[in-house]
């Protein structure tokens, strides 16, 4: 193999890993925001799939990938409202009402897709988005194609993560939101409505995960498949713990899982004699292993999972 070929292979692999990292990282940031406010949402897998279906149908209908992203966000918002009413207003068990978003999201996503494309003879696709090559930087070997020649939708996802990190760390509303997860009594004592901030955090979280689903369907795969999320929403929940509820660390952790996904894909196409079932299991086994060995220096939000009652 020539050095150029090796470089090309390596940057292709890194693009694969960063694709995974962006989708899972964005969903993890969504889950982190919700958990920071004290609400546990285990339904991100269902939200992501519904976001993917909504995003794909919207992108196809409007023939515009940006409208697709909005469709994904709208799908996430819809399920988020359901979750927020059941968790924050009705104060039902958060583990259960989150889990229920999975069958609801999968069912609704498939219904939407089949309803819109009923009678289509071949699987519908949306065109890929032209990458936004940044002059000069995109020519850097290895890192150029990975960091500086991606689709504008991918940069939008990155910008969104930056925005959320800034919001949580630096704005008054973000700090209040975190207080709702650490010490809701203190907020209440100061006359601030805890449930309002928690409601907002749930809805923001699912909107981000819906965005992630649309990114997966519209920007990365250009198609919709009922099993396309393949556990990404669950891995995102594990990543929140590994990332210590901090957005940028979550993105970094997601990149680690992206590497395991990339390894299984590369080994498969190189036809190494390892059972492909073992390779496909790698990201899932890695998730369990990391959760088992990880000791984060950051502890979970003190009031996580507990509905606030006066």
């Amino acid at each position, binding site marked *: 193999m020539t050095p150029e070929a090796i470089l090309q292979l390596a940057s292709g692999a890194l693009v694969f890993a960063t694709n995974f990292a962006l989708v899972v990282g964005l969903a993890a940031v969504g889950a982190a925001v919700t958990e920071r406010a004290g609400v546990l949402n285990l339904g991100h897998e269902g939200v992501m799939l519904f976001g993917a279906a909504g995003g794909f149908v919207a992108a196809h209908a409007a023939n515009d990938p940006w409208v697709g992203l909005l469709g994904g966000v709208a799908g996430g918002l819809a399920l988020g409202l359901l979750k927020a009413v059941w968790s924050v207003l009705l104060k039902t068990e958060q583990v259960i*009402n989150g889990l229920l978003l999975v*069958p609801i999201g999968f069912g*609704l996503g498939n219904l939407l897709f*089949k309803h819109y494309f009923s009678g289509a003879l071949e699987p519908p696709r949306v065109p890929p988005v032209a990458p936004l090559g940044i002059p000069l930087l995109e020519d850097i070997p290895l890192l150029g194609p990975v960091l500086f020649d991606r689709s504008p939708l991918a940069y939008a996802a990155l910008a969104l993560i930056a925005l959320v990190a800034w919001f949580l760390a630096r704005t008054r509303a973000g700090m209040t939101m975190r207080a709702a997860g650490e010490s809701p009594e203190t907020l209440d004592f100061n006359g601030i409505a805890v449930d309002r901030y928690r409601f907002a955090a749930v809805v923001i979280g699912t909107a981000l995960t819906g965005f992630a689903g649309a990114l997966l369907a519209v920007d990365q795969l250009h198609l919709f498949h009922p099993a396309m999320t393949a*556990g990404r929403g669950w891995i995102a929940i594990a990543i929140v713990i590994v990332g210590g509820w901090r957005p940028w660390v979550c993105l970094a952790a997601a990149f680690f899982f992206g590497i395991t996904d990339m390894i299984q894909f590369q080994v498969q196409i190189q036809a190494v004699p390892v059972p492909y079932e073992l390779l496909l299991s790698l990201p899932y086994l890695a*998730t*369990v292993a990391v959760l088992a060995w990880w000791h984060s220096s950051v502890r979970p939000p003190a009031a996580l999972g507990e509905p606030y009652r006066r």
Partner: protein
Amino acid sequence: MMPEPRATRSGAAALAAGLGATPRADAFLRGARETARVALAVGAGVLVAAGFVLALGYDPLAALRVMFETVFRSWSGFVDTVLQATPLLLIALGYALCYRARVWTVGGEGQFHLGAAAAGLVALGLPTATPAPVGLTLALAAAIAAAAAWALVPGWLRAHRGVNEVVSTLMLNFVGIFVMSWLIRTVLRDPEIPLLQTAAFPEAFHFPVVGQSRLHLGVALALALVPAVAYLANGCAFGARAQAIGANPRASRAAGVDVPGTIIALFLLSGALAGLAGAAQVLGVTHRLLVGLSHDFGYTAVLVALLARNHPVAVIPAAFFFSALVVGAEGVQVELRIPSDFVRVFMGILVLFVLAADALARRRAP
């Protein structure tokens, strides 16, 4: 102990007092009230679903009629429903035990596949002349052992390292399905047989059936286990310990309850039940291993346990109800072209409504 505030002032208790109340009668009335609440929630869920079907441009009454006819008009439709309810019943019994302790395992899907794979290994590995009682016992034992071992991993991680069991059991579900498909593709591959399935099991490894029907031994086994699980949940110290852990783990530990041990026992029990479900499916229904063996049984059973509000006896009607919905939805898809995905949304909404009904009842009588 569970506090019972205002119980003496509630209408039902007053009625019970008038009838010469005993604690048993009071408990009965409380049960009746909870059943009525679930029925009300299910009714509301049906109305919402009907509105949704209407909004998509279909006829909800026709859908209901086709659903009912698919399940009840023919004997074979009814048997299909019972056969699909059986794995749901077994897996949901295990979930109900765990959920009472607020141990939220959703690992039934993977454990089901491990149980089926182990039963398949025994059935295809032992000589075909094995006497049926010996063969079936060995297959069931292997299935229970394999699935319980699979459940031990997330159980130990939860009990000793505090790993979130929802995430770990889900991840292991994906892997468990891969384990079975790997076995089908390699170890148990028969070159004469088309891909994605094994050869049929020898006769000795078929569950006996009732007369000419397809109702097999596994159905009876599942029903027979209901009182056993009900005893574990409500009739003995183990169930009380599990419930105490669910109510307050710190206080239970202070009171001398072996919290990690109880949690691991719950995982092993739920794994064993799910493994039994997998074995019953291959020994009683398919008589071979095949890819796509489970119709999401492990996930639908979560909803079954929740609809039954984790009560082992109530799991029977809940499993039959959700199985009827799934079987009925297939009929609706064929006849009316309404995608069967609908039923997943419907089941999720039903359980959401049950949660809401409980929350509203709590608010009225805090």
